[in-house]
């Protein structure tokens, strides 16, 4: 009898304990107010806010997320200023991977290896790792530049640059008001793929910055020829110029990044495009047969060192869900025209030819390191690229001068 009572007691105890466990696993967290500084565009931030509401309803009812949009450089300076003051940092930061290097260098980010299952992000987690530690989890893969074309003006994506010249000239001959091709001429991020295509890189095998190699000179010469020899690009063109002309149908082909796809699919914002007219393709091949290789990374969410306790618990829970839950990834990555960063979500070419083409372009890229010294390269190349594109600096001089400037920057 006693044995029977004991068994019954143990059984009841086990059931109660088990149900407590189940209850605790499913019980929602306390409501929190999170703040995220986001470098993403407004449209994508709206999707992010909506996703938070979905998460909060299930996991922490009553929680709110304040999304503060900050342009790349503002995000960096504001975070450093808050770090110096010792307060005012957000709970989460969403931005490109090269910002992570700067924030990590300043000691303002938490390592995330113990907080997230890093193995879940097989494609691009390396772009957020510094010194063997992880400082950001990807919301998507990509951030890569590719060829984008208006199918109503160009039937088929050019496979080589020679094809692109011919197609661009044909478009302008048919209608002089339409520019054949345009891109952000003086911005090094658009120039670096050419350097990679000619076999160059930013760092040599020993990690030293090398901006004065034959590949760099060839790349400067190539973009110079685009403007002055082939004359297939406008005399002046920055990001807004190429972007606006493409959206209104005044340019047939541009080079732009995956972040713009969502906007181009929206015919209210891009009347000349939409899913019927937008075409994506990898960069056309250079005369050597190699394609220019864009930098690839993605957008990453990082957690500042000041996010603690309930805020940290909620932040980790939300970001884990946002970046690994299949439906959430589909909504936030695919839903904003970008590629997933987890293996569980794939792009089907049959149902989503646009993202499938973006994926194809992504495969031609090279990983962008999070090293903060990369910024010295951007800064040093920019004025020299401007010199080449205005015809006042020779390609060889540009490469030599960029190297000197970069070394000077690295000393600072």
């Amino acid at each position, binding site marked *: 009898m006693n044995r029977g009572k004991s068994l019954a007691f143990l059984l009841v105890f086990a059931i109660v304990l088990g149900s407590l466990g189940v209850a605790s696993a499913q019980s929602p967290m306390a409501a929190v107010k999170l703040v995220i500084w986001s470098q993403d565009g407004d449209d994508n931030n709206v999707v992010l806010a909506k996703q938070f509401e979905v998460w909060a309803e299930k996991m922490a009812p009553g929680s709110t997320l304040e999304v503060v949009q900050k342009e790349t450089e503002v995000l960096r300076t504001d975070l450093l200023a808050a770090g110096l003051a010792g307060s005012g940092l957000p709970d989460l930061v969403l931005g490109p991977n090269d910002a992570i290097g700067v924030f990590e260098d*300043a000691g303002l980010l938490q390592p995330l290896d113990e907080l997230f299952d890093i193995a879940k992000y097989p494609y691009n987690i390396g772009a957020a790792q510094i010194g063997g530690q992880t400082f950001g989890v990807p919301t998507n893969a990509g951030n890569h530049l590719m060829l984008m074309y208006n199918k109503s003006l160009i039937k088929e994506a050019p496979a080589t640059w020679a094809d692109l010249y011919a197609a661009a000239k044909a478009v302008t001959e048919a209608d002089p008001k339409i520019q054949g091709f345009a891109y952000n001429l003086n911005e090094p991020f658009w120039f670096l793929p050419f350097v990679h295509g000619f076999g160059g890189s930013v760092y040599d095998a020993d990690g030293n910055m090398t901006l004065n190699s034959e590949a760099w000179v060839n790349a400067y010469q190539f973009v110079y020829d685009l403007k002055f020899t082939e004359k297939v690009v406008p005399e002046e063109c920055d990001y807004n110029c190429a972007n606006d002309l493409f959206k209104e149908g005044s340019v047939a082909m541009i080079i732009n990044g995956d972040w713009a796809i969502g906007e181009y699919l929206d015919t209210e914002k891009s009347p000349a495009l939409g899913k019927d007219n937008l075409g994506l393709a990898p960069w056309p091949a250079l005369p050597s047969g190699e394609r220019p290789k864009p930098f690839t990374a993605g957008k990453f969410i990082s957690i500042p060192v000041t996010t603690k306790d309930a805020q940290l618990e909620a932040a980790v829970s939300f970001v884990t869900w946002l970046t690994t839950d299949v439906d959430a990834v589909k909504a936030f990555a695919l839903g904003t025209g970008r590629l997933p960063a987890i293996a569980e979500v794939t792009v089907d070419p049959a149902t989503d030819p646009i993202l499938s083409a973006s994926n194809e372009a992504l495969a031609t890229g090279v990983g962008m390191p999070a090293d903060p010294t990369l*910024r010295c390269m951007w800064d040093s190349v920019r004025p020299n690229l*401007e010199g080449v594109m205005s015809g006042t600096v020779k390609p060889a001089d540009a490469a030599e001068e960029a190297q*000197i400037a970069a070394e000077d920057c690295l000393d600072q």
Partner: protein
Amino acid sequence: MELSGLSGEVILNTLRQIGPLIIFVIVGVVLLEFGLYLFFSRVVKTKHALPYTLLAPALIALILFMIYPLVFNVLLAFSDLKRSTFGCYSPISTGGCELDHLYGFDYAIKNFTDVFFRIRNGEIIGWGRLLRTADSTFPVLLLRSILWTTTNVIFHFSIGMGLALLMNQKIRFKGLYRALIVIPWAIPGVIVGLTWRQEFHAQYGFVNALITALGGQPVSWLDDPAAAFVAVTFVNIWLGVPFYMVMMLGGMQSIPADYYEAAEIDGANPRQKFLDITMPLLKPIIIPAVTLDVIWTFNKLDIIVLVTGGGPQESTNILVSALYNAAFGTAATSQFGFAAAFSIIIFLILFVFAIVWIVSSGGLKEIYER
């Protein structure tokens, strides 16, 4: 959540966020004033308790928003604060610190020297680069800053004065003209900069469209260094003229008409009236206006950043844009210590100018002698 567009919900949320702060400031000021009045009247027992009380908020604001930042800036000039040493100065950084001290004369000497010279292994090897290009040295940027400032101030003054003289005449629709001329002042600088950037576009901009319509050749305004400097200077002139016009017009309208009538009786021509009556009587307005304009223009970087971004090839940068770049530029070196020293040098240049200019012109003599 509404992020694009100013909806009613956004406005309400904003009011909810700033409302408590506004109430706190109002209640705080009232309590502070009350406390100060009691202090001056009961403790200090001065008969000037009320004036002191009324002056106190302005004095506190000056200390908080001018004196404290100035002192902090000098302190920064004695530091080695930059991205790579951020861990030493941030109370929350988890980065390490390899500095053995945070502030010192050694840092100040290095910061001030780096503004002028490039030093390797303790030896000066040439002028230091304040930006990335070889000619971004202190003398080059100083000369460009002087050229930028003098060109702007001369055109601001002459066009502003000319318009003020016109507006001071009896002409029809004067109010309308005055409103039109003041428009540049009413437009936010960001919109001015971005709009003019588009208008100076070589292929699609209004400026080249006008030039070609008049039979001229299009100019690469943003690609050619000289043209870019002309473009950005033009925008700032356009922006600065209303200030002078308003100041001069106010001054002209305060000159009694009797002086001009007396001069006419004596047979003075318009040139003589302008040189012998208008200009001398406008001097107390012209001198402070020019002083302020020189300081504002010398320090004006927003139009440069927005119209040319300092380019092409950093050719439209001036000293303050190089200073901004050192602290907040895209290289993210965040050299705050160096930038603080650099800003003190710019401050000294403008301070010396202001003293020499005001004393030599005697523009404020009448005010002091009143």
